[in-house]
């Protein structure tokens, strides 16, 4: 296996870590020095040749090779067996439906939300439970970080340059979770995208930060979703009709399961109960234009269609919290994309 990237010689481990800082290759945290042995192990675990092009980012005219992805995955602290997930995610970044340039560059400051489904999630010990979006799990922490380092180092998505996020959010360090398929009231998410339950897949979504809501006063789906809808009606990107992810944690999952609510029931309810009048959206300056009499009666939906609500089961078994995650922009700019994770 021949690696073609430029090499740098340093005196010791500390010097290697410092060189990565000096050269602007990190996200602000220390990285694992990318040595030949580690990079080759990463490529072998992915079944990839170094020169294999995983993605071509059209707007930037950048070819993303397996070698560069492996180097960044090493730096992020990934185990070699994570490589197939990272490779599939990088492939998805280049999908025209995802529209890399918009969400990566925009002042909106979206992160790449990653949802992993299939048997690989448990095998890699990807967290789908307690402290879902927080720290504590190597796979969650480093797989998302590897993708961000690829964006930074290979595709040139540098803050203040081709990443012009006004605020950004913590998910830009890592934003990778698994679905709790075992306890979910619904079929695994990737089966809604045409995959079999026993296949492995990753779904990516250009996303703002999770917005948490609590409902401890109701034990019905309508009650939980009434709270969710109240929070969602005027939320980031409302008037541009992006997709939204909805992540329901354990106690809320149980409520849907007991009531026999399908994923489609949740989508339909939220679609119907997050509509605003055009007048309301104009009053809060989320739609342009002068108020017209008919605006008080004209309804405007949060998303284009119920299927644009990506309903996911994940989070701690205890607790009355769930979250929604608004997508970046509108669907004409970026949509969620699901890719199979291929194992060698």
């Amino acid at each position, binding site marked *: 296996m021949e690696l073609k990237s430029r090499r740098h010689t340093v005196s010791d481990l500390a010097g*290697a870590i410092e060189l*990565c800082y000096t*050269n602007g290759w990190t996200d602000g945290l220390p990285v694992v020095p990318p040595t030949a042995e580690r990079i080759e192990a990463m490529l072998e675990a992915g079944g990839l040749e170094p020169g294999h092009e995983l993605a071509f980012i059209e707007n930037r005219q950048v070819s993303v090779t397996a070698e560069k992805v492996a180097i960044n995955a090493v730096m992020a602290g990934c185990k070699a067996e994570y490589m197939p997930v990272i490779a599939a995610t990088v492939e998805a970044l280049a999908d025209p439906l995802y529209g890399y340039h918009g969400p990566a560059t925009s002042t909106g400051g979206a992160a790449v939300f990653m949802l992993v489904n299939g048997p690989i999630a448990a095998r890699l010990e990807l967290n789908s439970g307690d402290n879902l979006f927080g720290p504590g799990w190597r796979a969650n922490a480093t797989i998302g970080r590897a993708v961000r380092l690829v964006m930074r*180092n290979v595709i040139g998505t540098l803050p203040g340059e081709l990443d012009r996020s006004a605020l950004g959010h913590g998910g830009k360090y890592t934003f990778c979770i698994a679905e709790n398929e075992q306890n979910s009231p619904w079929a695994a998410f990737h089966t809604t995208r045409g995959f079999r339950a026993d296949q492995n897949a990753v779904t990516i979504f250009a996303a703002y930060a999770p917005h948490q809501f609590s409902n401890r006063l109701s034990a019905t789906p309508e009650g939980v979703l009434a709270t969710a809808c109240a929070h969602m009606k005027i939320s980031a990107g409302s008037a541009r009709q992006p997709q939204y992810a909805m992540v329901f944690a354990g106690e809320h999952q149980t409520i849907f399961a007991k009531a026999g609510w399908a994923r489609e029931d949740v989508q339909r309810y939220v679609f119907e109960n997050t509509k605003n009048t055009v007048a309301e959206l104009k009053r809060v300056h989320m739609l342009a234009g002068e108020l017209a009499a008919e605006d008080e009666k004209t309804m405007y939906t949060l998303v284009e269609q119920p299927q644009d609500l990506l309903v996911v089961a994940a989070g701690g078994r205890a607790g009355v919290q769930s979250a929604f995650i608004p997508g970046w922009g509108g669907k004409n700019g970026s949509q969620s994309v699901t890719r199979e994770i291929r194992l060698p």
Partner: protein
Amino acid sequence: MAIQIYDPTTEVADRHIAFVRRPQSLKGVRIGLVDNTKHNSDQLLLRIAGILERDHGAKAHLIRKKKSAGAAPHAEIVEEYKANCDVIVAGVGD
């Protein structure tokens, strides 16, 4: 003990890009305007076209809207620009 690490960044490859020659004057040219979909983008571009026509002798303008601010202009409008315009004004309005 010295260690060797590998560069994680894209290494620049030489590439030739052919640019169209810039016009010597805007007199008599047809202006293409690329509306990037942002609020007021069209207003800004139409004002620019007005100045180019009034003060610099451009003879006409054509404005078309992209599908998304983050995407390149789609093939249909590129063909319209090629058929009907001599110069293009593209900018980000917001």
